[in-house]
């Protein structure tokens, strides 16, 4: 017979062990359900039960035409604290470490950590910093600081940071800094795009967030679905040309002591914008001063007097002055009411609608051809052409065809339409016809003027300026086609006027001359209208031109506001055009006239 004594004893022991285990489980269950941490477990249970998370796609990237990254996303981290995991030492150490690493007040951080959040039903808080005006803003750290803090969290020898958590979130960054800042715009901390490309294409770039079920339980793990991503954009901008243009503009602003300025470089054949620079520059990585007033964090900025103009190249209207004469002469030549050799006797004044118009120098230039009128930029002659030759209906019909007073439709947020009073306008008088003919009493944006003048450079065809070359989405690429805005003048008129402007340029200013290249252009010096009439002190100096004459590859507009060194466009804006073109022909690999003629004539090399 087998002795069952020890076996029973072992069985009892096993049963006792199981009973203790079951009892422990019951105690733990009661503790979870009703103990001091019951709310925390309830919260976790709720999260798991809901099992949903909003997944934001990465915002689309922005490249220049050659693939240089202009806008991308980098990780940033919010600092959050799981208050139930805080210990007495970690409360002190977290405040001490963060105040030293981030240069923040220890007392403020400590107060946030010592606050009785649990009593208020909050178990996880996001640490904030105090900004001006008593407002608070979440503390955000970059990858480098995050790596340091993660190192501390993982190292038992490091300061005790128990309870601290780093929560990643994407941040928009602009690797080229302030370059093309006005063109690109910016994205705020909430991911909303403002101005420029970021504003115009916000819906496309942002993609679409989706709600997904969470997989906290390993047994229910599943791949997280990707939300529909935002598109990547390739701009028409060449960042090297942009850099060159911005550097030259900055130097010009300094040399001429101008208040502000803009330069646009466009390919007149297809409307691609190669560079668009504005001064003062906008740094999209530090966009606070450029935010709309109601969204700024800093109250000191909020109280500043002037609202900054974002991208004045498309949003800053000005009376163009003499550069506008290109359009008046184009209309007259196209309508066949004048020829380049037609003579006009300049007496130094003309009356249009009761208003006496004089030349820029107040002088009388005697017998002049239309070429001479352009070369010497004679207001009297152009007012004569508009009032006596073209007449009111035809003149305004042409201006409308050139898009004056209308949006160009460029794909940049914030474009304004400019102002043109036509005879239908209640405030229009006949004297407007005279002043409009030489660019006074009419306002345009730089992009409008360049688009209109671009028609002359492009054989009479006016194309829509645009910034995006390719849109790349998950399904494929989209190449926007060149949009023809119209044909305000014939190809013959465009050719005739281009020759006139090229010939007259040498007589008007020698500052725009570039050796071995035949260029076309016109200077402009415009008075600035105020509510009390025209400002007697300041001008807007400008230059618009293109080249090479036979095969235009670029058109350039230069605008300098309130230059102190000289008020004249021929003196301050024309040299800027020359400097830009001298670099542009090298960067765009445009050979001199002689070499191009040789090649087109069948030569083998230059």
């Amino acid at each position, binding site marked *: 017979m087998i002795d069952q004594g020890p076996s029973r004893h072992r069985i009892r022991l096993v049963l006792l062990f199981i009973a203790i285990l079951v009892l422990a489980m019951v105690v733990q269950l009661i503790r979870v359900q009703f103990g001091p941490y019951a709310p925390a477990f309830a919260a976790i249970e709720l999260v798991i039960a809901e099992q949903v998370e909003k997944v934001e796609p990465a915002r689309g990237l922005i490249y220049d035409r050659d693939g*240089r990254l202009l806008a991308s996303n980098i990780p940033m981290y919010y600092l959050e604290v799981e208050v139930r995991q805080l210990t007495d030492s970690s409360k002190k150490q977290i405040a001490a470490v963060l105040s030293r690493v981030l240069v923040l007040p220890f007392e403020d951080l400590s107060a946030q950590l010592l606050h009785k959040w649990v009593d208020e039903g909050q178990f996880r808080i996001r640490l904030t910093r105090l900004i001006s005006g008593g407002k608070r803003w979440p503390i955000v750290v970059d990858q480098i600081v995050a790596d340091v803090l993660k190192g501390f969290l993982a190292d038992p020898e490091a300061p005790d940071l128990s309870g601290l958590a780093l929560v990643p979130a994407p941040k928009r960054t602009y690797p080229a800094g302030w370059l093309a800042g006005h063109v690109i715009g910016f994205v705020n901390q909430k991911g909303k795009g403002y101005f420029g490309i970021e504003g115009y294409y916000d819906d496309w770039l942002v993609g679409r967030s989706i709600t997904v079920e969470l*997989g906290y339980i390993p047994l229910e*793990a599943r*791949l*997280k679905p990707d939300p529909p991503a935002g598109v990547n954009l390739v701009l028409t901008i060449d960042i090297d040309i942009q850099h060159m243009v911005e550097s030259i503009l900055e130097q010009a602003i300094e040399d001429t002591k101008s208040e502000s300025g803009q330069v646009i470089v466009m390919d007149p054949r297809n409307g691609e914008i190669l560079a668009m620079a504005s001064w003062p520059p906008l740094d999209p990585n530090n966009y606070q001063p450029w935010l709309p007033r109601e969204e700024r964090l800093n109250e000191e900025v909020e109280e500043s007097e002037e609202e900054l103009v974002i991208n004045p190249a498309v949003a800053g209207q000005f009376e163009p002055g003499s550069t506008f004469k290109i359009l008046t002469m184009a209309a007259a030549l196209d309508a066949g009411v004048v020829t380049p050799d037609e003579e006009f006797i300049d007496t130094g004044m003309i009356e249009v609608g009761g208003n006496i118009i004089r030349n820029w120098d107040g002088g009388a230039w005697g017998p002049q051809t239309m070429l001479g009128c352009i070369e010497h930029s004679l207001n009297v002659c152009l007012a004569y052409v508009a009032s006596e030759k073209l007449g009111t209906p035809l003149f305004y019909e042409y201006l409308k065809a050139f898009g004056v007073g209308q949006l160009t439709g460029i794909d940049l947020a914030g474009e304004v339409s400019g102002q043109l009073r036509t005879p239908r306008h209640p405030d229009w008088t006949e004297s407007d016809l005279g002043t409009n003919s030489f660019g006074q009493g009419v306002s345009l944006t730089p992009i409008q003027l360049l688009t209109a003048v671009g028609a002359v450079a492009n054989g009479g065809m006016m194309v829509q300026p645009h910034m995006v070359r390719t849109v790349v989405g998950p399904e494929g690429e989209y190449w926007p086609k060149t949009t023809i805005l119209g044909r305000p003048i014939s190809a013959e008129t465009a050719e005739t006027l281009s020759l006139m402007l090229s010939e007259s340029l040498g007589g008007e200013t020698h500052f725009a001359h*570039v050796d071995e290249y035949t260029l076309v252009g016109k200077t402009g010096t415009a008075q600035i209208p105020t509510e009390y009439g025209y400002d007697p002190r300041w001008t807007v100096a400008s230059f618009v031109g293109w080249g090479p004459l036979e095969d235009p590859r670029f058109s350039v507009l230069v605008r300098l506001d309130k230059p102190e060194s000289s008020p004249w466009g021929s003196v301050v804006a024309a040299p800027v055009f020359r400097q830009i073109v001298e670099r542009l022909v*090298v960067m765009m690999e445009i050979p001199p006239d002689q070499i191009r003629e040789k090649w087109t004539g069948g030569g083998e090399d230059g």
Partner: protein
Amino acid sequence: MLPLIALLIVGGMYLAVNARRAQAGRQVLVLQKKQAELERMNADLTAMLAELTSPEQMLERALSLGYRPAKPGEVEYILVEGYPGPPVFVAPRPPASSSMGEGTLSPAYTETLGEWLLRWLSWGGGGGQ
């Protein structure tokens, strides 16, 4: 006795499969976290590279090496017949969105023994994963 042994075998198999399933699921969660971390690191490095090759930085480095911008008269042009010019840049495509259905794991990682048995039986005993 036999049914008890069969039950024990099935129970053992069930436990083993579930343990492997839980392990695989845990691995998926870890890998997902790592993927997110690597994606963040990649984005950070890409932005850093773009910053280092920005025109401002490149010009500074070129000038420090003794280069200067060429003037129009200093450039020599050679016509190369048939040269199409530099290739046009096309941006990389953003990741395609995957729906919940496309995003789920293979059943090998998620299904229970019972589900596997049902699938196996419905396919006539073949085609398991």
